[in-house]
């Protein structure tokens, strides 16, 4: 392996048609994900943070090939070369499914109520024809114990509804990791869990990532969670990444006005981190046929005429490993 990234995302876009139908071409699009560029290194954990509706899940689902991008590409390193995820042949499809998994937000709806825990966790092994049924049984048991569902034998042949939310999300983690993938997209895996058990699940995910050498894209709307889980953070606003960089630098020295606003809404119990309260008005909506101006313009406390008359600012290196998309953030 090298210091080349595991995942390369280039110009990734997803436009959802708003109207149109069988006889009409859509004339209007929701720019849910609008030109993302980023990389994720081997063993790294990248946080994707932003308000609900900003396009996090859509991005995650394009990375695992649940959705096809409207434009741009996702590349995954397998061996020494990269495979283009949206343009995949039979052989690389197999490599892709062996290496990329996802943990879903809802631990209740993401499991077939008629399948046992063994069948749920073993499904990736079964559909990918890995091992005999008894080998799969052993493997599933091993991973159930690994996620703290012990003894495995008392969980294997139960149904999801017999388990608590926290136990189910542990099952989901075991399922995602059972084929030992290189890359896992975790879409708000703790947001539907009771606050008291979130830390346990997060800690588990971190331990397992280290042990199995997993790379995460960790999606969350909560900066405090991203701070705990991630090496780097990308902040998203209406389909765009507005700021990306190392976790500590981003949190202690936020540059983009949106990141500042998000941070002022999160209590961070760390006296070293000081920040000014920033107020932003309004709520997030949708980027439907957006104007050629900064996406954040309507809510930005420091906007000016330049922002209004120029297209959305490019994501540029501003210093200390930080890339920011804002005309008013100076290059250091």
């Amino acid at each position: 392996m090298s210091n080349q990234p595991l995942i390369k995302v280039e110009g990734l876009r997803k436009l959802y048609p708003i109207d149109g139908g069988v006889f009409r071409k859509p004339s209007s699009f929701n720019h849910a994900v609008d030109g993302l560029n980023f990389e994720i290194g081997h063993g790294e954990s990248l946080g994707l943070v932003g308000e609900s509706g900003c396009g996090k899940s859509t991005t995650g689902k394009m990375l695992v090939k649940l959705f096809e991008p409207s434009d741009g590409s996702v590349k995954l390193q397998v061996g020494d070369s990269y495979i283009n995820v949206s343009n995949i042949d039979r052989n690389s499809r197999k490599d892709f499914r062996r290496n990329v998994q996802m943990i879903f937000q809802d631990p209740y709806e993401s499991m077939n109520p008629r399948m046992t825990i063994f069948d749920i966790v073993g499904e990736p092994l079964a559909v990918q024809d890995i091992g005999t049924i008894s080998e799969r049984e052993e493997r599933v048991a091993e991973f159930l114990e690994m996620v703290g569902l012990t003894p495995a034998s008392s969980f294997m042949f139960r149904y999801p509804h017999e388990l608590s939310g926290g136990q189910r999300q542990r099952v989901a983690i075991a399922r995602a990791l059972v084929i030992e993938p290189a890359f896992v997209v975790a879409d708000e895996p703790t947001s539907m869990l009771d606050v008291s058990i979130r830390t346990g699940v997060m800690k588990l995910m971190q331990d397992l990532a280290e042990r199995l050498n997993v790379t995460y894209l960790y999606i969350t709307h909560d900066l405090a969670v991203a701070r705990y889980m991630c090496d780097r953070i990308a902040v998203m606003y209406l389909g765009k990444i507005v700021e990306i960089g190392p976790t500590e630098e981003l949190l202690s020295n936020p540059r983009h006005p949106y990141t500042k606003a998000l941070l002022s809404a999160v209590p961070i119990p760390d006296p070293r981190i000081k920040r000014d309260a920033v107020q932003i008005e309004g709520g997030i909506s949708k980027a439907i046929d957006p104007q050629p101006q900064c996406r954040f313009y309507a809510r930005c406390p420091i906007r000016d005429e330049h922002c209004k008359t120029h297209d959305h600012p490019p994501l540029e290196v501003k210093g200390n490993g930080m890339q920011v998309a804002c005309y008013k953030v100076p290059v250091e």
Partner: protein
Amino acid sequence: MTNSSSNRSNGGSSVWQARWALFRKSAAANWALFAENPVGLIGLGIILFFLLLVILHPILLNTVWDPNVYNPINGFDPQSPVNPAPPSARHLLGTAPQGQDILSQLMFSARNEFILAVLAATVTVTMTTTLGAIAAYYGGVIDNVIMRIVDLVIMVPALSILIVVSGLFELSIVQLALVIGLISAFGASTVVIKSQALSIKVKPYIEAARVAGGGDFHIIFRHLLPNLMPIALLYMMFSVTGAIFSEAVLAFLGLLEVDMSWGIMLNTTRNLGFILDFSNRWYLIFPAGLSITLLSSAFYLVGRALDEIVNPRLRQR
């Protein structure tokens, strides 16, 4: 420890053992629910009663019944030369216009009814679930073609299609079962099953299965169909009711090539002009008529009871 390792050496039998145990457990739980409901039990009782008749018939013919006298199709009793004759000790339900024993005819016919019912229902249920699942899963052109055929079939009453088909080709019981199965496969139940399949298709566990590497086939057969089975089973019961009733009508109209059935019994009665003389010839009409009503309602009752298990919000408690 020794136990589990020995299990593993013989090819994952512990998985199958565990699955079998789960199956038995859920079967027991479902039976307990079913048994709570007198409606379902009555239906089941009637079905078992007619099954008993089916089983007893050949036994009686091989033991106490002289085949020459009691053959349901061409039996004749020299001791009772005037036919039809009302019930007597030798012929508990009387004799038919051509001298056959009515009880024997009734019992023999029950077998045909079951063959018809099971076959028609199996065809219906396999086809509706598959069609509904495929229409919902693929959508687009495939969905449109299936649903337009369904619209067409729903628009035209099933019985009139059956009358035309059986007028064109003299159908045997098996052929009739296939035709009935096919017609109800494109019936209203497909619409219901498709809408159910649509609601399953958007569940996150379908996306999860795809990320796991599952293809269309896997998703349809491992996720969609098992979740459609309960409701399909329900419609299976109702389609049996329809099948038994349709057979009776077609046989009564003389459109079927069947050696004996309840409908044929009524058809003979009508052809020979006894059908309007109910007060004197009730034994030619009543047993067959009652059997048709009882057996088809029995499946309906079982269906209603299953409905309450499948759709728990119907359960009053």
